[in-house]
């Protein structure tokens, strides 16, 4: 049990980074649809840089750079050019996937050092919880900080309130002297950099190595779905990421039972997670809400009002 939960916590950490990053981006009113491409190109770049420099840290930094760069293009296209964010994000997705295949070709099958495990003294001694949460590497610990930090920032800080204003009612925020578009740039780039960490987390420890067309595949799409599932709340988003980890673990357990369907079982968590969005939608409807207030509180989700729209003062 303890080992199982520890594995789930570690394997879900890339999704935590990506989904929280996207939450930050979308809270500011921008959709960065390119996560699937961002994560795969970042995974390739992180792995390649870590091999070239023998440093996992530099690998992570390079991956953050890739994520930030793609996010900058998304922000520029949506803020300066007022282009459709979905269109730009989709094109960047395909482009980044192809780039990761082309540039990553020499790194297929290479061995990497990975990220060393680093149990936290004292905390890892705690019975049960210590083994589950505190016998991992720095990147996994970082994912806890990102969840907590994003939650406190968005809901408990002044800057976070400003950011919500930018995503909900940009005109009102602007009237109060908040630099709407500058903040949108900032949070889109921060979100992209976090997605970059998520990508590198795959190639540097979750699925150590680079296999084109396999490493980090489909996780970017799932991260986008988890943001909706989590109702743009970092705690619930993190819950969604861990739930996906549980689904994947369960699918793995079923493989010995249905050995010939192993490949299909591995695919199963992806549609399940997406169709869970139906639940979120139904529970946010009035009739159900009246009967199950607890369910509603947990599942309802309202996107930021100005999500995906460009802001400009006339």
């Amino acid at each position, binding site marked *: 049990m303890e080992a199982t939960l520890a594995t789930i916590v570690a394997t879900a950490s890339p999704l935590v980074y990506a989904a929280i990053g996207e939450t930050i981006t979308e809270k500011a009113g921008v959709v960065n649809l390119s996560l699937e491409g961002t994560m795969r190109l970042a995974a390739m770049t992180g792995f390649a840089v870590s091999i070239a420099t023998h440093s996992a840290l530099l690998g992570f930094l390079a991956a953050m750079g890739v994520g930030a760069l793609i996010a900058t293009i998304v922000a520029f296209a949506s803020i300066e050019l007022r*282009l459709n964010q979905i*269109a*730009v994000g989709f*094109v960047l997705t395909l482009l980044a996937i192809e*780039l990761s295949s082309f540039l990553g070709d020499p790194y297929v099958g290479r061995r990497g050092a990975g990220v060393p495990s680093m149990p936290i003294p004292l905390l890892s001694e705690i019975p049960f919880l210590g083994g589950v949460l505190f016998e991992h590497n720095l990147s996994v610990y970082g994912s806890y900080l990102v969840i907590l930090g994003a939650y406190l920032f968005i809901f408990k800080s002044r800057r976070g309130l400003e950011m919500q204003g930018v995503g909900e009612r940009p005109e009102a925020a602007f009237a109060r002297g908040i630099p709407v578009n500058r903040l949108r740039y900032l949070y889109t780039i921060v979100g992209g950099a976090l997605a970059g960490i998520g990508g590198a987390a795959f190639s540097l420890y979750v699925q150590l190595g680079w296999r*084109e067309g396999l490493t980090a595949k489909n996780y970017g799409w799932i991260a986008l779905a988890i943001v*909706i599932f989590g109702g743009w709340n970092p705690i619930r988003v993190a819950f969604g990421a861990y739930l996906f980890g549980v689904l994947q673990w369960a699918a793995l357990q079923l493989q010995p039972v249905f050995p010939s369907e192993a*490949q299909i079982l591995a*695919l199963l968590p992806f549609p399940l997670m997406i169709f869970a969005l139906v639940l979120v939608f139904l529970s946010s409807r009035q009739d159900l809400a009246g009967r199950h207030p607890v369910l509603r509180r947990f599942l309802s989700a309202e996107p930021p009002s100005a999500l995906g729209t460009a802001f400009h003062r006339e």
Partner: protein
Amino acid sequence: MNGRGWAARTAAILVPIALAFAVAIVLLQLGGAPPLEALGLLWDGSVGSGAKVADTLAAWVPLTLAAAGLVVTFAAGLWNIGIEGQIVAGAIAATWVAREAPGPTPVLIPLMLLAGVIGGTLWALLAGVLKTRGGVNEIFGGLGLDFVASGLVIYLIIGPWKRAGIASTSGTDLFRNEAWLPTAGVNNVPAIAIGLTVAAVILVYLLMRGTRFGLRMKAVGRNARSAHLMGIPTERYTLGAFALCGGLAGLAGAIQVSSAFHKLVPSVSGGYGFLGILVVLLAAFRAAWIAPIALFFAAVAVGSTQLSLRLNLDSSLGGVLQGVLVLLVILAGGWQARRSRRARVDPTSREEP
């Protein structure tokens, strides 16, 4: 004034093409390959011989069918990311007919193509109902159904439809000869498939241009709320767009199994659905531009497979080229719109001619 507008529009197309090739040349240099030789291979590998032209046309068919369908869903304001699954669903339905139905080619082939259309339509309607009744954005509903379709095709290939004796993911047994779509000439040009594709493009063009159905579809896409207030049944139009696109995607899937592979394979969609989205974006959603742009994309895709054979380069260079091109064209379009906005708002900022 008009001359400048025309020049600017031409530049907005030519500059991105030149830049995309420049990016490809830089990437080839980075990959340690001779750029000019590689671009030459791209040319030879796509249109260099009769056989290569036939290959390019074989790729053009599913790509164009997908793009033609996507013109309809885009007009209705829908991002039909589920198109990959719709191609797969059509391929599965056509394979089922090929395995089960008796009869000679003139009976079997129409049945297979029809089954493909129906399979793709039903699969697309699932995404449509998920959107209109389940509140799931079509991007995510479509993705989820893409996953299900790819799981289903693998299940069929290693399960009920596995090859005699061995369960392998390489595909089912080859269809019997009656289920092969007839081709023309020594190079096996898929003439029937091309004819169907041309008909589909014309159909979509006329539908979107001259019919009440097309106009109302566009109204729903522009502003669903006001379309609803005008008395247009928006849900029916949303589902109609999904059904049309799914039908064409399913036809593409049926053609893939009966003409390109002669069996069902896991990667039967070939990524043509997603590539079709790029084609439609580059065509600025206009049906008339689909065919030539898809031809260019098909040539790049087929040509770039030569790179991996001859220069040991990853064939994804073609995809990079396509992606950079579409991105640059979209950005250039946004840039021009921005300049004309600025010129309107502040007349003094307009450059002197």
